[in-house]
């Protein structure tokens, strides 16, 4: 269970990125966080693993109060939170294997990681995960030789090898084509289901959010303006989140694409 209690973040520039956000995510729930650019989605998930320090409020994962940890305890807490990034964020000059194993850095000592002598258990798990995301033959390739979709799969493997309780996913599909986007979203959701992980997925594609998440939270200017099931996203709610626009087309398209998605799943 992840709990956010009146979390606010004010950047040094004075911008208030989050206003009094309160949110509760039970174990095993996949939540889509939607909202326009600059609504504070990235800030929100970065507050949870403290890549950004919240200004006010408390965040607890299980019974661990994350917002007040020392830097050593924070390292240990971060191991339980896997993060997946928009531009994949693989270290480009390292091999695929090193990128996946870097997910274990929180568990091994410095010299072990320096000499790339990870425990056999970790290496086995890395191969298993690479196989699970369909990249077992790519282990020794350099990360910058992969395509966008493949890189994101490596990113997913890196997050999962941390053995996390929670996935923080920041715009996983923003740099991918529509088909790959769906495959990646499906993969993330399947893996969460397999491992009973909870996940927060930032996504600005409303359609994808509706297709894959059980719960949608709408963020606008740092405030939660919608929290409910995906089919509750009517034109008035979308207008409230994103502003005035003709939403009928978007909503109608969802049903069409749902079928398409089902076909695709049947094919693959």
């Amino acid at each position: 269970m992840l709990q956010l209690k009146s979390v606010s973040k004010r950047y040094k520039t004075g911008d208030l990125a989050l206003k009094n956000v309160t949110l509760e995510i039970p174990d095993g729930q996949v939540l889509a966080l939607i909202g326009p650019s600059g609504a504070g989605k990235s800030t929100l998930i970065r507050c949870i693993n403290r890549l950004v320090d919240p200004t006010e409020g408390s965040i607890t994962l299980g019974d661990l109060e994350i917002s007040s940890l020392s830097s050593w305890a924070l390292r240990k807490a971060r191991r339980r939170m896997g993060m997946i990034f928009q531009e994949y964020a693989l270290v480009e000059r390292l091999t695929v294997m090193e990128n996946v194993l870097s997910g274990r850095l929180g568990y091994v000592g410095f010299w072990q990681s320096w000499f790339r002598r990870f425990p056999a258990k970790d290496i086995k798990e890395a191969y298993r995960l690479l196989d699970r995301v369909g990249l077992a033959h790519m282990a020794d390739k350099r990360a910058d030789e992969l395509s966008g979709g493949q890189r994101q799969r490596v990113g997913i493997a890196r997050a999962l090898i941390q053995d996390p309780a929670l996935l923080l996913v920041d715009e996983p599909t923003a740099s991918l084509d529509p088909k790959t986007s769906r495959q990646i979203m499906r993969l993330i959701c399947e893996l969460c289901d397999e491992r009973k992980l909870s996940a927060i997925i930032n996504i600005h594609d409303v359609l994808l959010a509706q297709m894959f998440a059980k719960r949608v939270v709408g963020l606008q200017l740092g405030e939660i303006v919608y929290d409910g099931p995906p089919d509750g996203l009517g034109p008035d709610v979308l207008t409230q989140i994103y502003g005035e626009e003709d939403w009928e087309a978007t909503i109608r398209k969802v049903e069409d694409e749902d079928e398409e998605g089902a076909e695709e799943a049947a094919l693959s």
Partner: protein
Amino acid sequence: MTDIQNQTEYPGKWKRPPLIKRGWLRWSLWIGAAIYLSLALGTMDINWGRVAEGLPRGQKFIAAFFPPDFTSRWESILDGILESIWMTVIATVAGIALSVPVGLGAARNLAPLPVYLICRSIVAISRTFPEIILAIFAVKLFGFGPFAGFLALSIATVGFFAKLLAEDIENMDPVQAEAIKSTGASWLQWINYAVQPQVMPRMIGLSMYRLDINFRESAVVGIVGGGGIGATLLTAFDRYEFDSAAAILIVIIVIVIGLEYLSGYLRRWVQ
């Protein structure tokens, strides 16, 4: 659509806006620069008579270089070259080893402000003094010989290498760094997995480049007493053995060209 196009007359000419928008400022800068240059040229006071005298003397000087004499002083040339080479290699390695912590500290995105300021000042100080000044200091402090040269070259290497390392770190991709941080990596692991892979190819190239510079500077450093081939060269000039000096210069040129070729090759290889 067509209505709008007919209504508005668009200009057919366009000029790039000038860098300095105010016309008077732009022109006065040009005129000021022209006046200064002509005045400066006027003060130089070239004595054409002496230039005319110097030219034939230069011819004789160059003629004395030929043929270069490799044999009669070969042993001291070889000693000097070997001394220069080991001085260069040790100074480069020591300088780079010192540069790594200073460079990490001088990168604003890694270091807290006090550390940053200290490391930046170390870089600034060692960059203020050219190798030859550092060598003069070192010779005064520790006496003649290659140790002074080694010291001067190492310090100069820190100024050069730490600055470029810090700048490269500041330009790294922050998202890759964030990703490693979010796995729960310690600071050292973070440097090893997120920062080092991003800066390594350029650092290898720069090390080779610095080796090249240090060898050339080792000749200069030798002239003020820092040992190595520079000292041999100076002795040759002092004894008016211009043919031996020519041999030394040729050896230096060959080694510099060889190093340059090698460093170019290595840099292409690591990219």
